[in-house]
């Protein structure tokens, strides 16, 4: 049985093609671009909510898309144990849909920030990090204006081990300087209690080919490979 992934296109998504490119052309599995109103979960083993400005991010990043019928479909997938990844705007949508805890606020710099950062893997037992070592450092870029992670009960996240990635320095130090947007506790990505839903602000699809990385590595692809590994371990 072959694996099939859906990449959901909302009006205003703009990293949809990039994620599809990595899955189709770099990894070589079938990924379909699906318009949000046409998405039916039955056909898919997993789905990705890509980055961009869904519905123009009017009102608040991700809030309108969180009410799209596609999110109902994604919810069915999650309940069924299938993996759902939210990248950047996709992460905002997942928090607005309350599939993931917390919210993404305006960066503390008050500006859009496009640059490469470093993440430390905090939890390597999720659908999207099972091919990584705990505490491994991942080189990956960010590009967002609303990425400051906030949650009013951080203790709960720690107790449940829901923090997946934190921003750190190149050497792995967790400090204020390595935090590009003022996120609480340098949090860059979180997961749900079941570990099959992950959201992160950085862009793994931009860090999946050596030619695009200033560090000449492909750390981002490990998220997608983990997803495939997770699907295989469920299916076969």
């Amino acid at each position: 049985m072959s694996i099939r992934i859906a990449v959901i296109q909302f009006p205003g998504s703009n990293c949809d093609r990039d994620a599809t490119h990595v899955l189709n052309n770099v990894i070589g599995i079938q990924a379909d671009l699906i318009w949000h109103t046409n998405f039916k979960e039955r056909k898919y083993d997993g789905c990705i909510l890509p980055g961009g400005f869904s519905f123009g991010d009017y009102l608040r990043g991700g809030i309108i898309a969180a009410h799209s019928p596609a999110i109902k479909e994604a919810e069915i997938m999650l309940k069924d144990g299938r993996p759902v990844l939210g990248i950047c705007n996709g992460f905002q949508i997942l928090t607005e849909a309350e599939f993931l805890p917390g919210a993404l606020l305006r960066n503390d710099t008050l500006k859009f920030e496009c640059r490469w950062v470093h993440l430390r893997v905090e939890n390597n037992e999720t659908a999207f990090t099972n091919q990584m070592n705990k505490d491994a450092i991942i080189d990956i870029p960010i590009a967002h204006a609303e990425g400051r992670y906030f949650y009013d009960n951080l203790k709960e996240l720690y107790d449940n081990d829901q923090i997946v990635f934190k921003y750190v320095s190149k050497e792995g130090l967790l400090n204020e300087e390595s935090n590009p947007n003022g996120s609480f506790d340098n949090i860059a990505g979180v997961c749900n209690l079941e570990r099959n839903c992950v959201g992160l602000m950085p862009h793994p699809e931009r860090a999946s080919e050596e030619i695009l990385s200033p560090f000449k590595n492909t750390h981002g692809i490990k998220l997608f490979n983990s997803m495939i590994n997770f699907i295989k371990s469920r299916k076969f």
Partner: protein
Amino acid sequence: MPIVGNERDTVEVALTEREIEKIKSLLGRDPYITEWGMFDVMGSEHCSYKSSRPKLKLFEPAEENYDYVLAGPGQDAGVVDIGDDYCIAFRIESHNHPSAIEPYHGAATGIGGIIRDILCMGMRPIALLDPLRFGRLENNSHSQWLLKYVVKGIADYGNCTGIPTIGGEVEFDDSFENNCLVNVACIGVGKVEDLAPSRASKPGDYAVLMGNSTGRDGIHGVTFASRTLTQQSESDRPAVQIADPFSKKLIIEATVEAVKTGYVRGLKDLGGGGLSCASSELTGDGGTGIEFDVNKIFTREPNMTPFEIMLSESQERMMFIIKAEGLETILDIFKKYETPHAVLGRIDNSKLLRVKDADKIVVELDPTLLSDFPVIIREEKRPDFLNDLINQKTPERTLKFDEIIYQLIASENICSKEWIYRQYDHEVGVRSVVKCGDGDSGVLRIIGTNKYISASAGCNSKHCFLDPYEGAKGAVVEIGCNIVSNGLKPIAMVNCCNFGNPEKPTSFWYFSECVKGMADSIKFLNIPCVGGNVSFYNEDEVLQKVIKPTPIIMLLGYIEGQENIITLPFKKSGNPIFLIGETKNELGGSEYHSVIYNIEGGTPPKVNLDSAKRTWDFLLDANKKGFIKSAHDVNKGGFLITILEMSFPNELGADLNLYDCFDKDLTSEQFLFSESVGRFIIEVDADKIKEFIALIKKCKLYFKEIGVIMEEKQIMIKGLEENFNLDMIIGKNLFNSTLPRIMEGDM
């Protein structure tokens, strides 16, 4: 301005009495009021190029002389064939006047407009570049305000539409204090078969207006842009359109999908002149006609008059000419993306543009009348003040060289522009191979091929001010050097000419000389000019300031094979450093003069096109042979600044011995700070040095081996009047901190 019209309606037009008489005689009657509005807009300098056209003839016809040029000047964008059915569209234009009044929406709608130009060729927009000019920032809150909101306007629009801003250029100079320049460029990619002409050539096709509703915003934007800025310009703010990048994103996706069906025969964006410009150009160029009722057009507010509807410059609108059999398919695509649209009517063979308001005819004329405005031959005169300026001498130096270098590296025109480009998403689309700060140009891959393109845009306004002919030549060479230093070959040019009031002979002289300089150099370098834009009237009447002449050059580069791409940072300690190209006594218009002495004069650089061309050929050849490890062209501040910029990213130092590296007639100061054009700093693979030297000698190029890269974080300079060391970390901090300090108050 004259008032025209009839007993009921009158309108003020920016036309001359001669033009008014000519319009009446061509039409054989007095135009209706809406027609007057259309003639006014189409006759504006912005739309008609009536002053510039005689000079622009100096550019060779690109489509005739270069077989890979698919679309040249006069089209919405230039298009070149890069093989295997792929083509690249690109264009640059100005949005200066709106940005000077309302920087956020002015800049954002500039981006919106240039994206539409690429889109209406049927291509997917994949990159943006923005050359900018402002007044000096330090202690000037107005300049800071303009910079902050222009950058935010570009960022919000580009980021939201998912088009990376891969490069740009900025200069700060007092002459741009009120009249800032915002030039915007866009690049698109697609298949040759998807190219859509801006023509309605077949009767029976449907004309469909798609995109946002038509409102009262932006009425007469182009006539406003064809005047100088005055105290009253603040009240022109309603002439600035409002940007809507989210709608644009949907329009992009809907258009690209529609074009792929093969049912789109013609496509035109609604920009300056709105519906009147789009409908007359489509039918005029196609030799056809059309009739439609203005009531079919969806408006943003009730009770808009036909005059307002035809002249509105509301953003985010496109006009599609659709093959009859494909209408339903195309409308379904528009419905999927929820983009508003209206079928206006069918193309006919009447050769008339007829617009009705219910049963009343409001426009009925031959559309070619609108696009064929008579040219005006303008007077030109070299300004008298230039001789004194060019004879200005460099004051006696009191500072030490290291102090001067530290001042230069921190100066506004040289310092890092990271504060700007970090606000731009420069990676979306996963094509950006050489990113902002890593090279002199932005390099993109064409996914699914082994092809790479690059683009760079800019010019040196100070050099052009002292000598517009040589300055424009210098701009072509300097931008070409940016392309070559990343290992690509310049294959096509577009330009954006920013000048003062063409009715003033000295302003027009600058324009005329710059066009000559551009035309002569691209002819010599075998680069076709595939498009351009002219922005006149960049004058500030309040402060009596004319902008420095700014002929922005944008070049497209091309190469096959990732292995051929070179980046800017020094790679390895032990590798030798070469200075290629001759340094002359050319301190005129240099940053050294301006930053250290606050003077603008002196002898500006003269350009040797032959040596530039041979240097490019040599470098591309040496690179293919694997000799070159990093490259950066010498630009503002002189070659030592170039070396510092190469040393910062990997924190590698350099040990330089400059004894015997320069002409004996030059002083150390002239050698260090001259901005002679066409020079490069090259890092050569230490194992290939013999072959490199043999090749460069064979090519008879001027070169000097000036030193070697080292681990120590210092630049050590020997062999000049005084030996000195530069601390790289101090230099790097100065380089990086200027814009954040000024713009954010960060220390």
